[in-house]
């Protein structure tokens, strides 16, 4: 292979390979996080606003992307974890096991660099038990399941039991106490 051919091949490869250093388009991410359960309920909101400000500030400062935009958010709520998780305690070096946490999520649009900045900041935050940043789509991804009991059942004559009610009401009225007592006496004498 001549030198000319190799350069041509390199040029082809360069075209085929995606350009990674170019201006990155904003991507849609979802951050799911657990806040440690020892945090007071009124302080949870502060931590969430801290996360939001990290996303906003990182979005502003990046050279590639503009301002980060929030798409959707799920407020943190205390849930029981499927398995115990351990994390370094807020103060001290001991690891503490937790069986519950405030789970919340934020969907946002930002540059790639924002996500990496956010990841670094959250890693060093002792109040965050665990988190995950995933790429997603702008649309709502929550499944809207039909209730499983909703089945088309043919409602035929089994439902038409309403005429039955009329004769029972009529028959209930004429039975007097005397007749009842008489009937009871007959049963007891037998």
């Amino acid at each position, binding site marked *: 292979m001549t030198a000319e051919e190799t350069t041509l091949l390199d040029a082809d490869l360069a075209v085929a390979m995606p350009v990674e250093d170019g201006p990155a388009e904003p991507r849609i991410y979802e951050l*799911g996080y*657990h806040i440690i359960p020892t945090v007071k309920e009124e302080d949870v909101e502060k931590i969430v606003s801290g996360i939001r400000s990290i996303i906003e500030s990182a979005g502003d400062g990046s050279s590639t992307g503009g301002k980060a935009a929030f798409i959707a958010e*799920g407020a943190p709520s205390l*849930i029981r*974890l*499927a*398995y115990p*998780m351990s994390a370094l305690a807020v103060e001290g070096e001991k690891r503490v096991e937790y069986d519950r*946490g405030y*789970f919340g*999520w934020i969907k946002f649009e930002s540059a790639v660099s924002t996500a990496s900045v956010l990841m670094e900041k959250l890693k060093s935050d002792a109040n965050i038990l*665990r988190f*995950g940043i*995933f790429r*997603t*789509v702008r*649309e709502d*991804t*929550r*499944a*809207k*399941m*039909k209730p499983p009991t909703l089945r088309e059942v043919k409602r035929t004559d089994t439902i038409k039991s309403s005429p039955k009610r009329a004769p029972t009401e009529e028959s209930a009225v004429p039975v007097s106490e005397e007749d009842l007592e008489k009937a009871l006496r007959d049963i007891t004498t037998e």
Partner: protein
Amino acid sequence: MSTNILTQNDIQHVDYKDVDLLKQFINPHGRVVGRKRTGLTSKQQRAVEAAVKRARFLGLLPYVAR
């Protein structure tokens, strides 16, 4: 009759937060059920697997149960 839950309910995206949906794709031990039993397309099965793994990492589903 098809057993494909996702197609039946017209679900386009599988979200890791939909624990009740994902629980239908794991067995009592917490393992992902195979395609033969879920009846999903390969694309849907991959999406379910990814969602289950995310849910496990975030403590929404167990890695092992029982």
